């Protein structure tokens, strides 16, 4: 499970790591308690990270609890930072001159994001990155990533099924695990990570600690599962395109696209041209989603008029088409679409049911 080396240190070393990153001039973005939820935001100090505060995530349900436990995927995913909800693409002056914004970003550290969100950034590298999204690419090259492995997934997590967690394996500068309240295990994932960890007082992890970690991750991995398996999943879904399950779900689905918005990989957008009084105009990109009615409305018609077809398209894109487009699944198992669905629809149940129907034939 661990190709790199593991080092152990006190919780104070994690604080030292935070301060070292800050001292090197990074803006730090990480989990913080705000508006009654844990979400990503800029952190001034280490103490803002709500260690010791847990969350309860169930379908359509989110609460924090102050009496301990751990927090999981925060409301915001890195998508909000790397691919903002509203972005001016260019401004056209009155004299038809095109003014493109120049993106300059300061060095930014994502501190304590989860392995599922790290995997989502990996997917964004293949989508936004390869498609040449300038904002994304400029921001991305300034990014330092410190990832926190999960030992207590929520009821909605299914990273183990998607192969993205509970531990991060690639694509980070540093990964750490809070083994318990006082012991942290650190793992470097890049030269920069090695350099940063060199500033801390760490010991090589003992065989006992590694065994404890292994057990904790194994337990987490047993919990963070969906009722379906990835083997042959795309084929199974394509074999049952006409499943009644999609129509049943559409009776509960609100078509509100909250799932699209909170998904760390959903990248669809609408383009709005906004004229100004001075004769100029701005072209703005805004997050959109395949659950939107107007999303599949084109000149001359509409190719997904029914809500069930829009819901089905979302499932099929994530679990079938994405593989062909980008070489991986489009889902990382973070569970946000389940937690933040106002109707409490559980994507895992939908997929399991559609797959089960194939077997029942």
């Amino acid at each position: 499970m661990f190709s790199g080396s593991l080092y152990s240190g006190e919780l104070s070393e994690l604080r030292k790591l935070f301060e070292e990153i800050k001292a090197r001039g990074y803006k730090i973005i990480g989990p913080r308690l705000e508006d009654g939820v844990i979400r990503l935001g800029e952190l001034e100090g280490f103490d803002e990270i709500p260690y010791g505060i847990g969350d309860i995530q169930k379908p359509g349900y989110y609460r924090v609890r102050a009496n301990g436990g751990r927090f999981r995927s925060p409301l915001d995913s890195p998508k909000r930072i790397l691919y903002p909800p509203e972005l001016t693409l260019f401004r056209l002056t009155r004299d038809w001159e095109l003014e493109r914004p120049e993106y300059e970003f300061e060095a930014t550290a994502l501190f304590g994001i989860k392995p599922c969100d790290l995997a989502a950034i990996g997917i964004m590298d293949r989508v936004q990155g390869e498609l040449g999204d300038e904002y994304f690419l400029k921001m991305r090259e300034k990014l330092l990533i410190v990832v926190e492995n999960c030992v207590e997934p929520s009821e909605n997590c299914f990273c183990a099924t998607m192969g993205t967690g509970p531990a991060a394996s690639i694509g980070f500068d540093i990964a750490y695990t809070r083994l318990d309240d006082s012991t942290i295990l650190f793992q470097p994932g890049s030269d920069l990570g090695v350099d940063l960890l060199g500033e801390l007082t760490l010991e090589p992890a003992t065989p006992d600690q590694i065994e404890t970690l292994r057990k904790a991750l194994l337990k987490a991995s047993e919990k963070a599962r969906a009722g379906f398996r990835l083997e042959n999943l795309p084929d199974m879904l394509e074999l049952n395109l006409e499943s009644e399950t999609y129509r049943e779900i559409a009776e509960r689905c609100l078509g509100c696209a909250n799932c699209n918005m909170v998904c760390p990989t959903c990248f669809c957008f609408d383009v709005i041209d906004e004229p100004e009084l001075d004769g100029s105009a701005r072209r703005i990109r805004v997050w959109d989603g395949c659950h939107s009615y107007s999303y599949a409305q084109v000149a001359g018609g509409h190719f997904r008029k029914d809500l069930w077809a829009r819901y089905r398209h979302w499932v099929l894109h994530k679990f079938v088409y994405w593989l062909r487009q980008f070489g991986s699944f489009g889902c990382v198992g973070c569970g946000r679409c389940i937690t933040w669905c106002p109707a409490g629809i559980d994507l895992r149940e939908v997929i399991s049911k559609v797959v089960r129907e194939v077997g029942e034939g």
Partner: protein
Amino acid sequence: MSGEKNKVRLAVFKLTSCSGCQQQIIDLGDQLLALLDRIEIAYFLEASSDAKPGPYDVALVEGSVSTPHEEELVKKIRENSRIVVSVGSCATYGGIQALRNWMDFEEVKKAVYEKPELIEALEKSRPVSDFIDVDYAIGGCPANKLQLLSVLKQVLIGRRVYQRGEGLCQECKRKGNVCVVVAKGQPCLGPITREGCGALCPSYGRGCYGCFGPMVDPQPGALARRFEDLGLSREEAALRIRSITSWSEPVRRFLEKYER
């Protein structure tokens, strides 16, 4: 006609309403002044007693049609205007006063007025679009001044007005609000309501009450069931959804089924 040269002639009319939407126009402040370079306000009684006759390029109509006089007025507005925009949920859906459409008209008159026989009103409070063709419609109680400005700016450059008619949840999530349904168990009409207000109420931690009217392809039935899960009675759920835009077609269709 004493029109100012090369300016778009704007008229603002009020039917049955509270004038709140007209206040939004005045509240544009500096942006309204900037608009005046391109627009001549030809008729706007809330702002000026200098009322000039038509024809008008753009007529903004606030308020629902609820009297025979207003029915005549909207027809004249249509004849006299190149573009008609219904502004706010009264003009666009019939408004909160359309709640009386669900009651006995004579009873309502008796309950409100001492001499109901003097009241000359239509039996129902209805949207402007029930009587005339409306080019563009925006909802809201009141309308959002920035959305209104956006419509005017688009009209000024002569393009067909583009408005996303999608659900408020998208605007709310883009803004970064925490979902009050999920995180607080509060009923919220956001999942069926048209965006455009900037997700005002959820930004202050309370549920949307749907004043912008239904989004495209709304699912009020699914939302009502969710409200019941959250502990609302069937009556309470219906009341929430009925609210300000009860006479809009999707809400009407839903209520007729749900309350049966």
